């Protein structure tokens, strides 16, 4: 929709030109959220697309995803053969309520910064031990794990003027076995629960719970836990902090989470589901 309070747009082409942040500004990535709601408090947009960051870079250390990488670009990524976790990328892209047309513009960074419980890029990057590179307005940089970055619905660790530059997925995570479960109230709807399990060559198991909780939760085990152990720890840690909105009742989200936890464990070779 038209954002009628916007009076100016900056289109920086260098990092230096980015340091203009003031109140009423918003960084514009894909714009798929910014332009989908009235933004009466905003007066200026700072377009990140003109920085022309390379969307994806696969290195010996893993995958570097620019914040401005679109969902479509990420979905199209052809992973090196050894990266057996790569199918998660497509699974998470498909967990968007948004259609392929939105994928053409929406960005990975935008999804993480939105910090919605049903943010599938949060699920993906958490499950793969993703770390954000954040640029401060003063030129400083810092790194933070995605799982620590997201604090709750539309709430995160980003301070005003800070910008997410990239997300790094370490090689170790990309070579893990994975299992994925997602459910929503409608076919292809907004996620009510999205769980990802990973298991590395050494046998370590990790469960990432998203969408059913206001923020991501992660459970790490050196070896496969028993099913009851897993669900008990999940349930007690989350401690009734189940997300409640029109896309799913808390009791249902809890039941789906515990059910999926068992299924994932079984799929990755653990106790009976």
């Amino acid at each position, binding site marked *: *929709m*038209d*954002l*009628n*309070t*916007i*009076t*100016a*747009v900056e289109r920086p082409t260098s990092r230096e030109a980015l340091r203009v942040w003031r109140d009423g500004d918003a960084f*514009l990535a*894909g*714009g*798929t959220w910014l*332009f*989908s*709601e009235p933004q*009466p408090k*905003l007066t*200026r*947009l700072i*377009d990140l*697309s003109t920085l022309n960051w390379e969307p994806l870079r696969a290195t010996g250390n893993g995958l570097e995803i620019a914040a401005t990488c679109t969902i479509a670009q990420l979905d199209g990524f052809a992973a090196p053969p050894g990266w057996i976790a790569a199918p998660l990328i497509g699974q998470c892209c*498909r967990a968007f*309520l*948004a*259609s*392929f*047309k*939105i994928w*053409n*513009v929406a960005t990975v960074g935008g999804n993480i910064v939105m910090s919605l419980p049903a943010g599938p890029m949060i699920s993906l990057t958490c499950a793969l031990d993703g770390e954000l590179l954040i640029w401060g307005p003063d030129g400083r940089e810092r790194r933070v794990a995605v799982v620590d970055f997201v604090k709750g619905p539309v709430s995160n660790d980003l301070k005003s003027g800070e910008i997410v530059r990239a997300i790094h997925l370490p090689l170790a995570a990309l070579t893990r076995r994975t299992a994925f479960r997602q*459910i929503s*109230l*409608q*076919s*292809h*709807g*907004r996620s*009510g629960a999205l769980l990802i399990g990973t298991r590395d060559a050494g046998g370590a198991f990790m469960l990432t719970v998203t969408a059913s909780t206001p923020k991501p939760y992660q459970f790490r085990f050196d070896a496969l836990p028993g099913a009851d152990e897993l669900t008990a720890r999940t349930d007690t840690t989350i401690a009734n902090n189940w997300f409640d*909105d*029109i*896309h*799913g*009742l808390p*009791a*249902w*989200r809890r*039941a*789906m989470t515990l*059910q999926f936890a068992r299924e994932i464990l079984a799929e990755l070779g653990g106790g009976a589901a």
Partner: protein
Amino acid sequence: MSVTVNGKPFDDQPAPGQCLRTFLRQLGHFGVKKGCDAGDCGACTVYLDGEPVHSCLVPAFRAEGREVTTIEGLAQGGALHPMQQAFLDAQGYQCGFCTAGMIMTAAALNQEQKADLGRALKGNLCRCTGYRAVEDAIAGRRDTEDARPGRGVGHNVPAPAGPDVVTGRARFTLDVAIDGLHHIKLLRSPHAHARIRAIDKSAALAVPGVVAVLTHEDAPATLYSSARHETRDTDPDDTRVLDDVMRFIGQRVAAVVATSEAAAEEGCRKLVVDYEILPAVFDPETAMQPGAPRLHDKGPQARIANASRNLVAEMHGATGDVAQGFTAADAIHEGTYFVPRVQHAHLETLCAIAWIDESGRLNVRSSTQVPFLTRLELAHVFGLDRDKVRVFCERVGGGFGAKQEMLTEDIAALAALKTGKPVKLEFTREEQFVGATTRHPMKVTVKIGARRDGALTAIEMHVVSNTGAYGNHGMPVLEHACSEAVSVYRCPNKKIDGYAVYTNTVAAGAFRGYGLPQTGFAVESAIDEVARMIGMDALEFRRCNVVRKGEPMIGLHEAPDDVIYGSYGLDQCLDLVQAALMRGDGDEAPPGWSVGEGTALTMIDTVPPGGHYSDTYIWLEADGTYNMTIGTAEFGNGTSTVHRQIAASVLNASPLAIAFTQSDTDHGGHDTGAYGSTGTVVAGRATQRAAEALRDKLLDFAATQSGVDRAQCKLAGDAVDCGGKTIALGELFRIAEAFVVDLSAHGTTNGIPRSVAFNVHGFRVAVNTTTGEVKIIKSVQAADAGTVINPMQCRAQIEGGVAQALGAAMFEEVVVDTEGRVTNPSFRHYRIPAFADVPHTEVLFARTSDELGPFGAKSMSESPYNPVAPALANAIRAATGVRFYRLPLKPDRIHAGITAAG
């Protein structure tokens, strides 16, 4: 900035925060539609450098130097794009508002995407079709027939507007460029109940571009109802154009008129309103109690049943003795059922453009189902002579009852009258949820008793309807709710009590089914339970108890005298659904899921009570073709196709030889409106009569001219055949002109008497009892539509009705919080069915022919909605053993129900 649109260069500067959608429309590309302005519906789909995007989300400045393709540019070199042709051949649309975006998306799909349309089309919402016709189009199936003389009634004649719809040329309400157009934005109340002490307009008026701020001080004192009915006293006079009392969050406080939408919005933000907060009430049963906050302090002239108890209407009816009936019963089921608020979600939001023409007359171009009634009420409210008001519509982007309401025209008229400027008011999608209307939420307690042999002994029903802050449609919806759902059953003892209650929430209004979906959900669920209790198959139980032709129909009262059995096909519908379910076809249930079947029926009067009028004028043109004006509006219901077919049949002409214009008060005559499923049965009758009168005139004149006996003369396409000698109609026209003989005719109807129509729905579902997910593996609806004038369109109406009802049955709910605020006012959070949500429905027709409708036709646009939710609930009951008393039947609720039942 420079941008190429459809191959043509443009040089224009968008506003910094402008989106591409409005920029493209500003450049004249009206094929780019707005269904949501938030990325959810896909109506605004265009290509940016060949890639499909939702243009409402794309900042316009990003189009700089790039190439944009809109629906207007899809056809290359005069030939339609194959996807446009496919949508034409399959008639993959109804109102056509979603169609540009649908075609743009479909045309961009690769083979892999086409193989999974549920996923590929999840960003394209269509509220009319139920997607089957869309699927046919994409699969390249053809459902339309070529138009030929004699191929009128009974044929799949394509909709006349098709070529315009698929190319984006069809003009919907706002698809016009008007010089000097001003924009209206509404400030809406943040309080559920408050009195305005003062409004400080000064800062708003100082905003550059703002030309007026209108408040209750500027509005006429006349009270009216936003609901439109043939007789205006059907609804209470409880509404002002702008009031000084706010009765719900979202009520309009003031209107700002400005040279741009941006300025009007800024003006709204700058208004300072001093409110005196009043106590509010949100629950209708609390609102009925003595001492509850009172919403309307109005006298008897407002026609509110009991204003001090917040009762807009109250009704009671009984026959026999229910206490005795329950004593005689072997089984009794009693349950309290609840149907929540749902919204119509027509893709074209409410909108209107108003201006004063050179003669000083008020013109309103509006997205309405009722132009004639709106004109009358505007004249009444503003104290104008009715000749000083014109209301009309061209193509309307869906209605479903929502546009049987005057919610934009009044403000637009006020603004035009006060400023003298042409003005536009366009609701946002959010305003559709917070400031338009919804279905009436109803709490229905029903108690049904039966003997073991299958005979009903008593039916008792207690209905509390929440009409919201205003009483528009409150009384007649309640009355309808208390009628056919019960009167379809023969039972000696019945008692019905109904209350329609004001609360401080967004007003309810007319919505497809008009009360019957609510009580039908309760009654048909209860019938299913009673059948289980006496160990009888539910269809068999219904068969034992439904009214048969000629029997009295007793609901709240014995059916009024003007309702007769013009035909009766309920027995056939029951048989058809039973046979279809027994066939055992449909999808496989996923392994491990529980399977169950359920059915429900509904009866509906074919025309609303109290008279329903329509006029058609038809005449011969100089070139030997026909032209007519019809009163009824087209909003996807397909009636314009039907009118052409009727005239073509009567005149033995090709449907293509019949031109028409419609829904304009300037055409003269009267039309009650396109509501109550009347576009075919009432207005179609007027067209039939007009065509018959014209046929007689033509034949009489041709007989005199040719000297051939009148009995030997017949119409044959573009000529009259007088005993073997043909006179071309063009020739006949010239002769008539020379003799000053008038070759035009008029037909009119009043909608009395009325008939009844029936629908029966059957589902087989599979339920995952772990997750609560439901998969419909078989869906069938049998309809008693009388003679089916256009089988393709009638089927599509039914499919669309089923899809809309499934949305309400499965997940739609407008959630109002404890302070009266709508918490999910967007398609992101108020999900309507997308392609993947809607199963195929087998549509079957009873073979009947009605005494009353044109060519034996009956209405079939509202009723397909009505049996869907209870049939689904009954199927889920069969699969899970759990009875669900509340819609919608979402997986989380089903899961909760199964868990609670242990």
